[in-house]
């Protein structure tokens, strides 16, 4: 197990470095932030002073060197926009996104396992067809449309839920529902597919012939074997959510990392962008390792292959 984790960690460091380098240099290709931060009538002297104060007058390579040295001291620089430490801004926004993603994935996986298994239990039955129809619809609904319609129907027309914000438990319903709908649709289909092939496998027949109950057959035998592909897809979907639920955060005023990243790109707030991307990349790195651990726990072959 440790060998596998170590290999995985080493191979993840390279993409992490590429991301950090890419964000640093690509961001600086998008133009001089002085135009955005100084008034339109600012004099050339004011622009030069601004560049010097923020180190933008230095060659790119030396700016990068300073950045790496700062990050090594856990100093992510200061936001051009708010004049606050950039690392704080990223760490303040990240938990809001993580909680949203956590609830969404939890509900999506639980719902998909139940509905996908029911659908797979009797392929081509009415239940299966309804589940397939609903899940493919859910997987293809555009989230911005769903979010705005949700506000219109449940907040404005029915008055059951608040339009937006983080105020109280009801405020979670629309953002989580909007985020949930696509992963849920995808996962139902994956669970169904994996369960259909698992339920027709010889060991299921053996289990049934030994007199095991249907519950034990479905959840004890088939589901355990069907879990690996579900876990892989769920891991990918979770990475997408942690990356920032930009649409949901923008529409519902959710103070998360996705909105922070988009805003810092538009505002050319390089320090905040770099900090937010680094924090997100580290969490995705951790999430991938977590998925690997789960794989190893579920499937002994994974551990054996790693040990060999």
């Amino acid at each position, binding site marked *: 197990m440790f060998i596998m984790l170590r290999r995985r960690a080493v191979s993840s460091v390279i993409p992490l470095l590429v991301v950090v380098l890419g964000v640093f240099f690509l961001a600086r290709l998008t133009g001089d932030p002085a135009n955005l931060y100084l008034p339109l009538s600012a004099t050339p002297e004011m622009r030069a002073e601004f560049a010097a*104060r923020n180190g933008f007058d230095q060659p790119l390579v030396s700016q990068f060197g300073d950045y790496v040295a700062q990050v090594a001291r856990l100093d992510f620089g200061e936001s051009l926009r*708010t004049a606050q430490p950039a690392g704080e801004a990223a760490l303040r926004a990240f938990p809001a996104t993580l909680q949203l993603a956590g609830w969404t994935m939890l509900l999506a996986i639980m719902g998909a396992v139940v509905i996908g298994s029911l659908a797979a239990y009797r392929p081509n039955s009415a239940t299966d067809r309804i589940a397939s129809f609903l899940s493919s619809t859910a997987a293809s609904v555009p989230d911005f449309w769903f979010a705005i319609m949700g506000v219109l129907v449940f907040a*404005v027309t029915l008055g059951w839920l608040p339009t937006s914000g983080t105020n109280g438990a009801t405020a979670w319903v629309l953002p989580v529902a909007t985020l949930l709908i696509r992963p849920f649709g995808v996962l139902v289909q994956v669970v169904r597919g994996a369960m259909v092939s698992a339920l027709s496998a010889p060991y299921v027949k053996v289990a049934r012939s030994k007199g095991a109950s249907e519950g034990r057959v479905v959840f004890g035998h088939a589901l355990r074997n069907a879990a690996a592909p579900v876990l892989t897809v769920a891991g990918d979907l979770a990475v997408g959510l942690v990356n920032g639920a930009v649409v949901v955060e923008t529409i519902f*005023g959710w103070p998360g990392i996705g909105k922070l990243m988009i805003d810092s790109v538009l505002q050319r707030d390089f320090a905040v962008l770099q900090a937010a991307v680094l924090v997100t990349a580290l969490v995705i790195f951790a999430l991938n390792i977590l998925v690997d651990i789960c794989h190893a726990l579920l499937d002994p072959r994974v551990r054996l292959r790693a040990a060999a």
Partner: protein
Amino acid sequence: MTGSGSVTTRASAPRARQRAAGALLSALTLVGVSACSVAGADPIGEGPGTLRIVLPEEPPTLEPCDASLTATGRVTRANITEALTERDPSTGRLEPALAVKWARASATSWTFTIREGVTFHDGSPFTAAAAAFSIKRATDSAIDCNVDGYIFSDSEVTATAVDDATLEVRTAEPDPILPLRLSFVEMVPTSTDPGSRVREPIGTGPYRVDEWSQGRFLRLKRYADYWGETPEFAAAKYVWRAEGSVRAAMVTNGEADVAIGLAPEDGAGDRAVEFTTNEVSYLRIDATEAPLDDIRIRRAINYAIDREGLVTAVFSGRPSGQLVSKGVTGYNPRIRPWPYDPERAKELVAQARADGVPTGTTITLIGRNGIYPKAAEAMEVVQDGLLKAGLKVEIKMLDVNAWLEYLLRPFPNGKGPTLLQAQHGNQAGDAAFTMGQIYGSEGAQSSYGTPALDAAIEKAQLASDDQRQKAFAEAFAQQNDEVVRDAVMANMTGILALSPDIRYRPDSATNDEMRLADMRRAD
């Protein structure tokens, strides 16, 4: 190898399952606990004494010397901090605020008499020394104050406290509108950090900062010892939502009392209140490049734009012929919007073509997404008019920073003939903040000027009172008749949503300065 491996697996399988279940349970608990912490961070149920306002974005800071930035100024100005003078947006007159009177002592010096009995939110008295400190901090410090660049540019200002109640302000060059400029310098106590931005300033205004939960809300509370009239609401809570339809829905749903920055399609319904802003939309014509260097083509562009059509079908506003709106010193009531005359446009282009002007050269129409509602559609309407007039036009829509490269000098090399979608809001109330930078030959946003217009602007900038009004109005007329360096489109309309329980009349300054004290309960 395989055998021993499988033995290990069998032995550890139940343990692995237990571990996985344990991990899942702890993950659930963690998510649950943290969920409560987010929900709990935003206190539920503000009392009826709280005014709830929803903004398009969170203020970056409340730094008083950045109060000329819209996102900061609309919360800070006249609510948390105040200036020595204030301009009445409806009359254009300058009124006393923290200074009760002022007089010009010489060509380069002004004397202000400070209001007595005013205290800052920390209890310290407001004196001439604090005023001198505030002016120095805003104009001569290391914080790149937006006010410094916007209001003072490179002019030098020295403020000295003569005694507690008298302030002397000197300028290097004669400055007839210094008291107007100072209406942008917010007063802060001498304890304010002169070397870095403050997020939560101390001021003399009717409200003080109570709590700022970043990313979530900002609450102001009424300042008990305010020198002026006590405002009606005991507190104000600002929240921010980027999506216009959500801001409008918050007011129709009763979650907010005021929502600003709305577009007609945001669905505020009968809660919507329209008001004329000081923003004017226009196209900058890059008159240095053929075929735009020919004045007939520039006039043809003006005749080819259907301004009535734009304000009826695309965005809301009133067709306009000049960059400043009524109430600004220098506004010329005689300048009418250019009429829509496609035939005249065609004739002018044909005449120019006959004289050898390369009218077949492609002109790039550079637009900026989101500069006003339906910005891209507006550019398509303009393009259509110009194509019909016989010009060749391509649209290029950019984001703010890429667009700024074209707006500000030095311009990108080899850009060819361009028309630039732009918008100008003169929030200061004097044409000096428009003319020099936009129409002067060397102006930061200017791609073309003439020596005659430069001279007219120069003369107007040094004039005072009625002479000043007349001189700037003449300069606008000169640009419109003889230079035609742009195609002014419309004076834009703003929309806010207002709860039926609130009485508030927005004016042309509302976008930059939203006075909480002007908001009252409807009877």
